[in-house]
Every structure is written in structure tokens, then in C-alpha cells.
């Protein structure tokens, strides 16, 4: 791109400079006469730039697409932005503020939300940037390849200390990363989520065998949920978050709108811990999936939760 830009810059600057000197006025009453317009020339210098821009478009678009779909084996990190700090949680339970330790050569998927205003998670060296929006999750992913310490910036103006909402990403060799992980045993996110699940009395309605008034959560994550009133939705992070904070928005087919909202009773960090807990239920051995019948097709993609 730089090459194309330099080419055209030099071309125009050069042409203007050259013509300005070569055709400078030599006498006061010089009259060059009109130039007739060449259609061919107009077409040529419209079509060729158009072709070049289409190449740029295609190239940029393909990079962008690749950046939007994380590999399945990506490590999940949850990010909550708030004025004016970054709060990050590893699945294994480590919590970090304004710092992120990651192993190199492993895809890292960030699931992010904001507690207040729009922020943006920006790591220049990773060519990564994604707005962090209140009320919904946004995601991005990257793979670090070189160990080192890299700037983390907030890149969406968010108030007084916007330029102070910065930190570091530490990319480490896998061995070093394991060592770092082991350094502070706090229980995994799923563990914390399980405790929250108890504290908030979710288990009173959501029984593992689906015998309560509410759907079971075993096997929920990633499945397709059929909704009352028709339609279906994929149970991803956004769906679960919405179901906790704004239950009436989507009622599962065959169930009553009984669930109260937990808005104000659980923080965004609590929500992601609950999500990790619910994800962990998929892997519980010995429990069969009961509750909702398998849902046919109708793959309405998950919509980011609007409250």
C-alpha cells in the first residue's frame, strides 16, 4: 500500500512540478488554447485506479475476516473495561489489572465488555484493536509470536483519564507462562462461577437434571435454543449474559418467564465467571443432557445482547 501511495504521490508531485516549470508563462499574452478532453484518457485513469483500489479492498477485507474468526483451540481471556482500568481474567482464575500475561504461539481470544462507556482494547504490536462496548460482548483474537512486553492502550476516548487507561501485555514462553500461572492459586473462573451460582441461588431453579421450573444448564453452552414464540438462538456468551441480566428478552420454548433479573446483583466480572462455570458443565461426565429436546436447524446466529 505504501508502495502504491508513494508511486502516486511521486507521480502527481512530479507531474505538477514538471509541468509548472516546463509550461511556465513566458510572455504576458501567451494563449495556449483549449485542450479537448480525451475520453480514453479519462477512462484509463478511472479504471486503473479503480482496479488498484479493488485489490487493496480485497486484501484488507481478507485480513479482517481472518481476524474475526478465532480458532477453536484459542485460549479464552475475559476483559472488562471500566473508567479507567482494564480488568482481565484467565480461565484458570488469575485476575489481572492493566496487565495481561499470555503464552506465545497460542491463539488468544478476548471476550470483552465495558461496565460504563465505550473503550477500545488496543495492542499496537499485535495489530489488534477492538471497541469494548457496554451492554454487549465484543471479541477479537491474536497469536503472539515473540516474547516481550507490549503496550496496551485504550483507544476510544472514555473521559478524564483515557490516556491513563494503559498497561502491558507480557508474552511469555510457554514454560514461563505455566510458572506464572502457578504463582497465584485462586481457583479457576469456573470455580468462582460455581460459588456465585450458589450464592445467587441459581441452583434453586436451574436443576442439573432439568426437573425444576427452569431449563437445565448442562450442555447448554454452544447448543441451539428454541425460543417461545418461534425462532432459535445459539447459546453463546452473549446469550447467557443477556439471560442473566435481562431474562424476559428471550424465553425458552416451553417455559414461563419466571426468572428475575440479576442486573445490579452481579458484576460484569461475575457474569463471565458464571459463563465459564456454565461452559464447564458441558464437560461434566455422567450427566446426560435432559430438558430441551434437540432443536432442528434454524440457525439464527447469536445476536449480541441488547437489553
Amino acid at each position, binding site marked *: 500500500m505504501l508502495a502504491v501511495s508513494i508511486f502516486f504521490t511521486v507521480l502527481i508531485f512530479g507531474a505538477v512540478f514538471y509541468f509548472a516549470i516546463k509550461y511556465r508563462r513566458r510572455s504576458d499574452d501567451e494563449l495556449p488554447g483549449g485542450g479537448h478532453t480525451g475520453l480514453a484518457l479519462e477512462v484509463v485513469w478511472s479504471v486503473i485506479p479503480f482496479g488498484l483500489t479493488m485489490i487493496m479492498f480485497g486484501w484488507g477485507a481478507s485480513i479482517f475476516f481472518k481476524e474475526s474468526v478465532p480458532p477453536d483451540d484459542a485460549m479464552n481471556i475475559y476483559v472488562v473495561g471500566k473508567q479507567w482500568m482494564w480488568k482481565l481474567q484467565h480461565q484458570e482464575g488469575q485476575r489481572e489489572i492493566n496487565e495481561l500475561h499470555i503464552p506465545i504461539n497460542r491463539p488468544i481470544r478476548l471476550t470483552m465488555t465495558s461496565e460504563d462507556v465505550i473503550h477500545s482494547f488496543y495492542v499496537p504490536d499485535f495489530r489488534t484493536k477492538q471497541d469494548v462496548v457496554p451492554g454487549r460482548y465484543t471479541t477479537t483474537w491474536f497469536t503472539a509470536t515473540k516474547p516481550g512486553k507490549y503496550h496496551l492502550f485504550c483507544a476510544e476516548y472514555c473521559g478524564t483519564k483515557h490516556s491513563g487507561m494503559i498497561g502491558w501485555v507480557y508474552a511469555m514462553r510457554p514454560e514461563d507462562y505455566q510458572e506464572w500461572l502457578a504463582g497465584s492459586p485462586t481457583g479457576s473462573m469456573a470455580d468462582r462461577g460455581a460459588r456465585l451460582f450458589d450464592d445467587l441461588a441459581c441452583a434453586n431453579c436451574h436443576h442439573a437434571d432439568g426437573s425444576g421450573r427452569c431449563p437445565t444448564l448442562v450442555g447448554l453452552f454452544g447448543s441451539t435454543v428454541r425460543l417461545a*414464540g418461534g425462532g432459535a438462538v445459539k447459546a453463546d456468551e452473549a446469550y447467557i449474559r443477556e439471560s442473566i441480566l435481562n431474562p*424476559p428478552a428471550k424465553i425458552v420454548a416451553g417455559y414461563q418467564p419466571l426468572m428475575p433479573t440479576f442486573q445490579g446483583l452481579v458484576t460484569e466480572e461475575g457474569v463471565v465467571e458464571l459463563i465459564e462455570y456454565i461452559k464447564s458443565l458441558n464437560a461434566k461426565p455422567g450427566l446426560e443432557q435432559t430438558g430441551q429436546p434437540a432443536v432442528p436447524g434454524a440457525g439464527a446466529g447469536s445476536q449480541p445482547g441488547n*437489553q
Partner: protein
Amino acid sequence: MDSQIQQSHVHPSDLHQGEAHHLETLALREQFDTEAQQKDASTLGMWVFLITEVMFFGGMFLGYTLYRSNYADTWALASRSLNLPIGATNTCVLLFSSFTMAMAVRAGQLGKKKAVILFLILTMLFGLAFLGIKGYEWTQKFEEHHVPALANFHLEGTQLQGQAKLFFSFYFAMTGLHALHMVVGVGIVLFIIFQTMRNKYSPKYYTPIDIAGLYWHFVDVVWIFLFPLFYLIDRHP
């Protein structure tokens, strides 16, 4: 494409700056060459202005459409709480007012001063009636606790009060904006009535009545869109 290909030889002394009243009339202002040109320009000007109004209201219609589709059930419930008979009555009132306005323009074309004034007064009365009925409707909403800005907001029949609040916000914002335009319209009609009484218009020059009519019809058309969108969709679930 050329509007008037006419030679206009204007002697400099005819254009004494600022005091050219003998040359400038209402029907032919200084900057125009012919009365037809002025009429064309004024009419085009009003149409262009109405296009800007379409874009202005359009932004809100866009927001309405998005939230209507996202929050369909709650919004349908909220829309059913609106008073359909009142809304329908108001629609008829406005349609009548457009009729009388069109009659006023026609009378202006024919130079019938008394008829112009009569029809304009009727138009104004219909407009005021619309505003009065809307005011009454709003006080009803106030009593039913459907005013989003107030702490006692509550819509029966749903847990999703936030979504319901949004419906009524759009309701008040859009009908309020419309009502504001009606008030301006009534003011314009009043002005035209006074001008007519002072014999400013004639079959040769009735452009202000014409473009006031355009504006009035536009405000009517906006209501024709607002009414079904707010009152009629999903009336019977």
C-alpha cells in the same frame, strides 16, 4: 434547462440601492427578472425545504423501525395502550384541514379573498383542534403513568419496562416534533390570513398561499405515517 431566456435591459439608475420600491414588489423582488421566475424559485425552495424535513423526521423513523423490530412484543403491547379513537379522530381532523387548505389555495388562484380567508380560518381551527385533542391525549398518558421522564412510569403487562419506556419516548418525541411543526403551521396560516386581509395577494400573485399549503400538506403527510406506525400495527395480536 434554462428558465427564462429573456433579455432584461436594466438601466443602472433604475436600481438605486435600497430605495427601489417602485421597482421591487412582493410579486417581483429585486433579485428576480420575472414574476414567473420568482414563483418557480419560491416553490422549488419550499420543496427543497420539505426534503430536509423528510430527512429530519427520517432519522427518528429509522430509530423507531429498528427498535420496533428488536422489541416487537413490548412495543406492540405499548402501542395497544394508545387511544385509537382519539388517534383516528385526529387523523380525520388533519385530513379535513388539508382539504380546507387546498380550497384556500384554489380560492387564492381565483382571487376570491373572502373564500381564502374563510378556508384559512377553517384550516387553522382544524389545526388547533388537532393540537387540543393531542394535548388531551397527552394528559391521558400522564394519568396512565406512561410518561418515560417521570419516576412513576409503568406499562401493565410486561416486565420489560425499559423497552416500554423507549416506545413512549419515541411516541412523545415524534408526535411532539410533529405538534411543533403544526404550531408553526398555524402561525404561518395566521400570517397568510392577515396578508390576505391586507390585499397582498391576487390571482397573479398567490405564491405564499400556495407554499404555505405545501408545508401544511407535508405536516399532514407526516401524521399519515405516524398514525399507523404508532397506533395501528399489531392492534389485534
